[in-house]
């Protein structure tokens, strides 16, 4: 992954966040990871004080998104990201426990790039995250629209 890409991790469960981070690191990805444990903080960071997202103009972001957040649903964040002219190109990886087919379809409809269900089995979980890390290491992320 080209070095300036920042990984935004929106995950309310700190345990999950820790496990995800650990496994991404194990796959050799050393990009900066900015963790958020609730939706409001993440939205404030992503869209800035004026809600336009202009702060991230020119920077490359990759968003790791959980759907079940304490203060809002990840789907709202996804929709806003994909509707924002600066952030819409940022890849969004939905990483959640929900494996409901309607939910999955809805996320892809809204423009999610990858949808991954967290497996309970840790082998599978670690495996999935590591492969995601590998994926991150080769994915090309465009800088936010100028």
């Amino acid at each position, binding site marked *: 992954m080209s070095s300036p890409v920042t990984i935004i991790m929106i995950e309310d*469960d700190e*345990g*999950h966040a820790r*496990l995800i981070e*650990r496994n991404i690191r194990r796959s050799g990805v050393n990009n900066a990871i900015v963790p958020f444990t609730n939706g409001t903080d993440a939205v404030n960071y992503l869209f800035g004080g004026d809600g336009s997202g202009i702060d991230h103009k020119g920077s490359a972001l990759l968003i790791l998104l959980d759907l*079940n957040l304490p203060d809002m649903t990840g789907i709202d964040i996804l929709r806003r990201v994909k509707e924002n002219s600066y952030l819409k190109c940022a890849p969004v990886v939905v990483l959640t*426990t*929900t*494996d*409901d087919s309607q939910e999955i379809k809805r996320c892809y409809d809204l423009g999610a790039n990858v949808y991954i269900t*967290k*497996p*309970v*089995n*840790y*082998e599978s*979980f*670690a495996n999935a995250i590591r492969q995601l890390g590998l994926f991150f290491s080769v994915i090309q992320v465009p800088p936010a629209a100028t």
Partner: protein
Amino acid sequence: MTPDATRRRAIGQILLLAAGFLVLVAISTASVLLVNKARKDSALVVHTVEVENRINNLLLDIRRAESAARGYLLTRGPEFLKDHQSAIATIIPGVNELAQSISDNPRQVDNLGRFRAAVETRLEQFRQQMMLVARNQPESAVALVQAAAADNIGGSIRQLAAVMSTEEARLFALRTADADRSQQLAAIVTIAGSGLVIALAGVSIFLVRRSAGARDDAEAMLRDNNLNLETTVDQRTADLREANEEIQRFAYIVSHDLRSPLVNIMGFTSELEELRGDIFRRIASLARAGSSAPPAPDNATDTAEPLLEGADKQLSQDFSEALGFIKSSIAKMDRLITAILNLTREGRREFQPVRIDTRELVETIVTTMAHQAAEAEAEIRIEPLPEIVSDRLSMEQIFSNLIDNALKYLKPGVPGEISVRGRTKLGFAIFEVTDNGRGIDPKDHQRIFDLFRRAGTQDRPGQGIGLAHVRALVRRLGGTMSVSSELNAGSTFTITLPIRWAASNRNRDS
């Protein structure tokens, strides 16, 4: 209205009718009696008038005889003689008739006796007069007439007749009054009776109308109640449906949210496991350093189990055991949560009623299970099955679960015989899946349908979900399910499904 009141009312009406009938009978009897009496009274009145008539006739005849005799005496005309004789001839029979008709009255009989004597005396005088005239002694005859006039027999005859007439007039007045009274009585009885009957009829009509009104009220109430009942049932059904959906949502959310911590537990347990490897490797190397043993080339193989001795080895094993239990429990919990999730998802799935060739469907299932059947040395026989309209996927799940169970729980060493039978009855299709397997203890018949519950020897893999799932499906398809089985004597699972299942309300709402 209480049943008691109803019975009282019915008895009252019967009594009323009986009373009316009795009054009618009484009136009829009284009328007949009174009319008879009135007729008798009238007859008596007529009789009295007749008697008076006869008396007058007699007097007239005597007068006629007298005047004819006088005429004859004066003129000697034969027509006077003839007239006299004819008058004389009617007198005695007239007296006899009179005697007959007054024989019931002793006073009149007495009077008549005297009257008869006077009349006979008078007749004797006539006879002598006539005789003297015939002998041509008119003077003697005239003298006789004079003597008779002096005797005044005619006067006493008239007097007696007047007495008798007076008596008859008295009787006439008496009898007329009697007849009037009888008639009046008859009229009163008839009027009173009719009035009573009309009154009873009026009361009857009132009662009938009142009970008809009560019946109409009751009918209206029944209709209202029916409507209310339907509304209540609808309401309850809606409530139940809502509650059911609530439970489904609840189960879904709970099982879903349970998963999240499970990921952590599993994840960090695995991390712990890795840490354990590191820790015990450290311990091993320290121990080796302490005992100045030749260092093993352990750095090359990270994953290799470090060589431990004595208490350290025991410690390592305990650690592994604990981790193993934790991990297997987590795995089991995950399976259960997954099962609940699948069940709730199944419960939310919309059913599509389609025409199903059940036999073909079962044959397809059996084909996919041919390998399993061959392994169990089982033969599956499919008899002709009725076609039904139902949800195809559900039917597939029902039959594949039942046949799978039948194959799974055969008696070891005994070739399996499984049969699928079907018949129809009163709009329902009844399917039976019978095996000659190990059977189910009757005390477990309820339990096997419960979620996560199993029965018998636990030598086969399974979560205890299949039958619970099948029963839930059968219920949603509007059917029922039962089992009959004895330990070691095979089992028969019976499913009753509506032949023509239409998507129920519950399905439409979900």
